């Protein structure tokens, strides 16, 4: 299982802070995003390839081809705006 976290605008858009999902067949960030977009609605819209979002795996910034394994913490959030 993956522990998925949502932050900021995405947390509000999805009305969800976290959920648990199975590791996708591709075992990559890209595969997870495809599954989430397949939910349609705000998921397809907010995570579209034309939108700006970031993914962190186990608290490190990740790329689209970053591998995933069971037990990973995957956070999905908008580009950061601190400082």
């Amino acid at each position: 299982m993956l522990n998925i976290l949502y932050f900021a605008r995405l947390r509000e858009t999805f009305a969800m802070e976290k959920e648990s999902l199975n590791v996708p067949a591709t075992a990559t960030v890209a595969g997870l995003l495809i599954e989430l977009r397949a939910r349609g609605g705000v998921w397809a819209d907010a995570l579209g390839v034309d939108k700006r979002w970031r993914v962190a795996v186990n608290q490190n910034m990740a790329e689209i081809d970053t591998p995933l394994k069971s037990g990973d913490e995957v956070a999905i959030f908008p580009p950061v705006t601190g400082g």
Partner: protein
Amino acid sequence: MSTIRVQTADFNIEDELALVRSNPSVGAVTSFIGLVRDINDGSGVTSLTLEHYPAMTERALANIVHEAETRWRILHTTVIHRVGELKPTDQIVLVLTASAHRGDAFAACEFMMDYLKTQAPFWKKEQTPSGSHWVDARGSDDAAAERW
């Protein structure tokens, strides 16, 4: 040596400077403070809420400090970032770098701010008279981080 803190409380730059100044090898201290502005992108801001991703924040800040200390000759680094609700003129962030000579202190301080702006998991939500909205990331911040 470095100090990293994420806190709701305010900070005082004189206190942070005092810690660094006690080392007589320090000849140069550069600092940056980010403040809440009352206007952003044309709309009046009455308050600002800073959300973060606690499990990742300290790690991201530690990575930024480590990267700066690898690239420049730094004697001390301080990073303090506030979270929670803030008002215009409130302090948001302090990055302070101490070195023997000013070139290292300036470069490391600006580098750390540029990286913090694109790598540290903080998000701002502004409250205005017409409602609240999440602040959009600025393309200029990505460009600033890519300089290094």
